[in-house]
C-alpha cells in the first residue's frame, strides 16, 4: 500500500504543494501585521494631536482657577536692591535698617516689587502673545519643567528669574502635543510683544532675537543683565532634535523702569 493520507470517507486526499501554503500563510500574517501596525500608528497620531491636547485643555481650565487663588495668596513686597554683578537673576537685597547703600560698582539702588516664589507645579502666571492666535487668550504657566508640569501648561524653569524680575525668566512649552502652546513660536519677529501676567501685574516683553540650539545648550537659561524672558520649545515641528529659543526683553511693567535704571 502507498504511503498516502486517507480521508474519513475513504477517499484519497489531494496532494498539496507545501510551498504555496507556507507562502500564503506568511502573506496572510504579514498583511494582518501591517493592518495592526497601521491602526497603532493612526492611534499614535490621534493620541498625540488630539487626546493630549484634550488633556491639556482640561488642565488649563483647572489651572486658571488655581492661578487666581495663587494670585490672591501671593505675598507682594517692595525691597531695595542693587545689581548683583555675579548673578543678575538675584539682585542683592539691601536690609531696611541699612543706610543708603554704596553705589560704587554695584550701581544705583532701586525699589523692586517682588512676589513670593510659587511652589513647584503651581500655576502662577499667564502668557499671552497677540501675534499668535492660540496664545491671544493666554496659556497658564506653572512652576517647574517636569513632564507633568508641561502636560498641563507652559513651565517656568526653577532657579531662573520670575517674569518681571531682573535676570532671565525661562519658560518652556510643548510645540506639537499637549495643547501645542508654542506651536507657532517661529512666527514671531523682532519687536513682537509677549505679555506675562503675574500677581504683580502685566509684564510686557519685546522679542529681540531667536536661536535654534541643541537640547543640551543650557546657556540659553543663563542669567542676563536687565530683565529678559526666554521661551524654549522643540524644533523642528514634530521632532525633539533641537530647540527653538526666543529671547525677549522687558519694556513695560511694574518693575520695568526700576530695572532699566539698575542696568
Amino acid at each position: 500500500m502507498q504511503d498516502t493520507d486517507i480521508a474519513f470517507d475513504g477517499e484519497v486526499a489531494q496532494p498539496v504543494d507545501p510551498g504555496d501554503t507556507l507562502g500564503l500563510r506568511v502573506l496572510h500574517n504579514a498583511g494582518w501585521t501591517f493592518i495592526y501596525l497601521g491602526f497603532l500608528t493612526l492611534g499614535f497620531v490621534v493620541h498625540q494631536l488630539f487626546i493630549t491636547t484634550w488633556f491639556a485643555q482640561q488642565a488649563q481650565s483647572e489651572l486658571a482657577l488655581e492661578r487666581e487663588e495663587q494670585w490672591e495668596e501671593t505675598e507682594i513686597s517692595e525691597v531695595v536692591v542693587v545689581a548683583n554683578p555675579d548673578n543678575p537673576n538675584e539682585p542683592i537685597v539691601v536690609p531696611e535698617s541699612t543706610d543708603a547703600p554704596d553705589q560704587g560698582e554695584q550701581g544705583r539702588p532701586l525699589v523692586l516689587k517682588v512676589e513670593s516664589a510659587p511652589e513647584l507645579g503651581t500655576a502662577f502666571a499667564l502668557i499671552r502673545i497677540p501675534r499668535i492666535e492660540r496664545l491671544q487668550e493666554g496659556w497658564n504657566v506653572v512652576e517647574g519643567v517636569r513632564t507633568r508640569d508641561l502636560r498641563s501648561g507652559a513651565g517656568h524653569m526653577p532657579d531662573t528669574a520670575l517674569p518681571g524680575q531682573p535676570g532671565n525668566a525661562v519658560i518652556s512649552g510643548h510645540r506639537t502635543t499637549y495643547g501645542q502652546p508654542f506651536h507657532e513660536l517661529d512666527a514671531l519677529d523682532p519687536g513682537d510683544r509677549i505679555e506675562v501676567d503675574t500677581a504683580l501685574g502685566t509684564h510686557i516683553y519685546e522679542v529681540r532675537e531667536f536661536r535654534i540650539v541643541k537640547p543640551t545648550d543650557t546657556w540659553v537659561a543663563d542669567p542676563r543683565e536687565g530683565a529678559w524672558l526666554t521661551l524654549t520649545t522643540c524644533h523642528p515641528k514634530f521632532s525633539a532634535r533641537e530647540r527653538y529659543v526666543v529671547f525677549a526683553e522687558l519694556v513695560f511693567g511694574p518693575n520695568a523702569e526700576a530695572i532699566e535704571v539698575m542696568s
Partner: protein
Amino acid sequence: MISRIWRLLPGPLWARVIQAVVLAAAFLVALHFFYDWLGKAILDQGGTVG
C-alpha cells in the same frame, strides 16, 4: 485576534463581557502610556533645555 481572545474568555456571557471590558480598559491605559512615552521620546519633549 479579538474574536480569538473573546473565545478564550471563560465563564457565561455576562462574565465574558465584564472581562472583555476590563481587558479593553487595561489595554487602552497601557496604550496611552506607551504613546505618551513614544511621543516624548521622538516628537516633543516640552521644549526644555538641559
